[in-house]
């Protein structure tokens, strides 16, 4: 078992007791809720006549079903309206703070938590959403939970869990031009597999991670779950603290910053920490990674050939064959030139301000291909407002992108933003499962945000490094 890691430290500080099942009962420092997975839990609470134990440690947003175009109420989709009303009632009755669309603070749950300073190092953070792992970028212990566990957290402020093993993923070196955090995590999942992380929490470390901004770290932690790990984290450092200092919470409570810093420092993994496993990745060798299949582990470097199913481990061959048929790709070819119909720049993986900035720099002076439907969906209302102030909206719109309001949007197609028929989508999101983007025949190719806009411009998957602007990082 691991020893001396951030995971061990945060776990120990939050462990209430060991339950008869052998699981630990862990205190939850921040419970984030959204409209899709919480209503049933509130229903269960009501059935048992229980109240929300710690409303002051709970925060709500609406993201999955919110329309990203016309947001006037009632929403045109009755089901979406019903879910919103339900959430509004639940948070009002329980006295839970709600970043609703009228507040200017609404957005994808994994974008607004960090933005508002709710996400902090050394907190335990849960949400009924598997990408809660995102918050680990701040050195929090953050994981997705199911609805019955949401009920547990609402009713008791705690969650029952078994301790996991810790794998350190050491990414050393410097990322080459045009290669970004998203490529690092796609590469990790490609190498270790979508099940590789089951039973583990991932600690991302090494010089390439340390030199990354918070947004890049969030993109990496976000997709820990695609690699099978329920949580992933980066030890907090100066980059983390600089980010935190600019958030609402610490602007309003500057004294808290000095008060908490010793705690943050105390939970960092020791130099001598013991890990259950260590994996090393050389950042200098990486190139942009795109997926060729229907699981996030089916990825390949942009200049590399798509593998033949028979080259893969026996248990992956069948899935690969079906995936290649669905995606209509041939082994031996590269993904470059794969025709696309839709480009989606959004999601909790890659819709923060620096993502939009980098993408806009590629878009500047270019036009979206005439056969492509392209959209930008900022991760939160604040990202949206900041991007508009900087003129990014104009850059995108001038090039022919649609500029939408904040939400999950086409990441999972629960609102009107969906793929149609067999459309192929270049997507900055995190999942390429069949049917994920709203059409069961739709095809999703995951990639980094600049690759998405490059694909939008050329109408096909493009190695963004071949575009001149990208050489100036």
């Amino acid at each position, binding site marked *: 078992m691991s020893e001396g890691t951030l995971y061990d430290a945060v776990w120990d*500080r939050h462990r*209430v*007791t060991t*339950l*008869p*099942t*052998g*699981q630990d*009962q862990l*205190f939850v*420092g921040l419970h984030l809720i959204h409209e*899709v*997975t919480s209503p*049933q839990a509130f*229903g269960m609470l009501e059935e*048992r006549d*229980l109240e929300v*134990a*710690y409303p*002051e*440690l709970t925060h709500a947003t609406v993201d999955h*079903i919110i329309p990203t175009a016309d947001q006037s109420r009632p929403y045109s989709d009755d*089901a979406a309206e*019903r*879910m919103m009303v*339900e959430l509004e009632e639940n948070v009002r009755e329980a006295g839970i703070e709600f970043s609703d669309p009228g507040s200017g603070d609404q957005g994808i749950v994994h974008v607004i938590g960090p933005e508002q300073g709710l996400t*902090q190092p050394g*907190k335990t953070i849960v949400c009924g*959403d*598997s990408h809660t792992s995102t918050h680990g970028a701040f050195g929090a212990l953050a994981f997705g*939970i*199911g*609805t*019955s*566990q949401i*009920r*547990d957290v609402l*009713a*008791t*402020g*705690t969650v029952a869990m078994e301790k996991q093993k810790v794998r350190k993923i050491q990414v050393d070196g410097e990322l080459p031009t045009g290669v970004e955090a998203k490529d690092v995590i796609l590469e990790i999942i490609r190498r270790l597999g979508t*099940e590789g992380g*089951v039973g583990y929490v991932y600690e991302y470390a090494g010089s390439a991670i340390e030199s990354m901004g918070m947004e890049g770290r969030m993109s990496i932690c976000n997709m820990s779950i695609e690699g*099978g790990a*329920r949580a992933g984290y980066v030890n907090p450092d100066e980059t983390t603290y600089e980010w935190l200092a600019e958030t609402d919470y610490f602007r309003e409570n500057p004294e808290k910053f000095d*008060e908490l810093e010793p*705690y943050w420092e105390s939970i960092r993994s020791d130099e001598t920490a013991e890990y259950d496993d260590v994996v090393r990745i050389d950042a200098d060798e990486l190139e942009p990674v795109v997926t060729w299949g229907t*699981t996030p582990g089916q990825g390949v470097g942009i200049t590399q050939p798509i593998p033949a199913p028979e080259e893969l481990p026996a*248990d*992956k061959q069948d*899935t690969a064959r079906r995936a290649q048929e669905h995606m209509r790709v041939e082994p031996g070819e590269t993904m470059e030139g794969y025709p696309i119909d839709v480009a989606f720049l959004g999601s909790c993986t890659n819709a923060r301000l620096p993502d939009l900035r980098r993408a806009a720099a590629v878009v500047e002076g270019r036009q979206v291909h005439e056969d492509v439907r392209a959209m930008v969906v900022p991760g939160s209302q604040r990202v949206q407002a900041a991007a508009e102030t900087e003129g990014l909206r104009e850059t995108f719109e001038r090039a022919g992108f649609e500029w939408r309001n904040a939400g999950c949007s086409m990441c*999972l*197609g*629960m609102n009107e933003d969906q793929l149609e028929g067999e459309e192929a989508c270049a997507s900055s999101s995190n*999942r390429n*499962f*069949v*049917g*994920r983007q709203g059409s*069961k025949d739709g095809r999703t190719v995951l990639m980094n945000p600049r690759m998405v806009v490059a694909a939008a411009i050329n109408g096909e998957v493009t190695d963004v490094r071949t575009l001149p602007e990208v050489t100036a990082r």
Partner: protein
Amino acid sequence: MSAEIPEVESVSGTGVAIRGNDIDTDQVIPARFMKVVTFDGLGQFAFFDQRFTDGDEEKDHPMNEPAHREASVMVVNANFGCGSSREHAPQALMRWGIDALIGESFAEIFAGNCLALGIPTVEADEETIEDLQSWVEANPDGEIEIDVASETVTYGDRTVDVSVDEAQRRALVDGVWDTTALMKANAGEVRRTAEELPYVDLDGD
């Protein structure tokens, strides 16, 4: 609240085999059916896109075969239930009629969600699963018995060893899988743990 948590020592019933590795929760329950505020009625949407065409015509799928309609044990392959944390997935299966799953391996959050519903997810090696799937296909009305306590599965004239995660086994067998009741009892200790944490500001403190 009621402290009556049923013990789940064993589950039995007829089976249905769902073949394939990496079956994700988007397949188990497509997101468009998640626009609901209760889980009632989700059963009919389990594996919807695999079971029905765009025109809502039934496709060839084991869950559509009359012989399997009463099945309560689902036999699956590796990494079943990967993807999102949506409890809608096990809820849909449970409401369709599934009381237990046997597979090569399960995604962790999915297995946890199943446990919260009292649904065992027991594991066996590839060969054992392959044999069982073929048997289920050949014997749709054959009874399968999963003994969670002793970690065995009995079907036809065979009994095979399976493995059940230790915490899951104890939770099911001792009837302590309803964690809300268990943890609510420790409210005082929870508060003390919270107060020891430097970042926690509780109302009324």
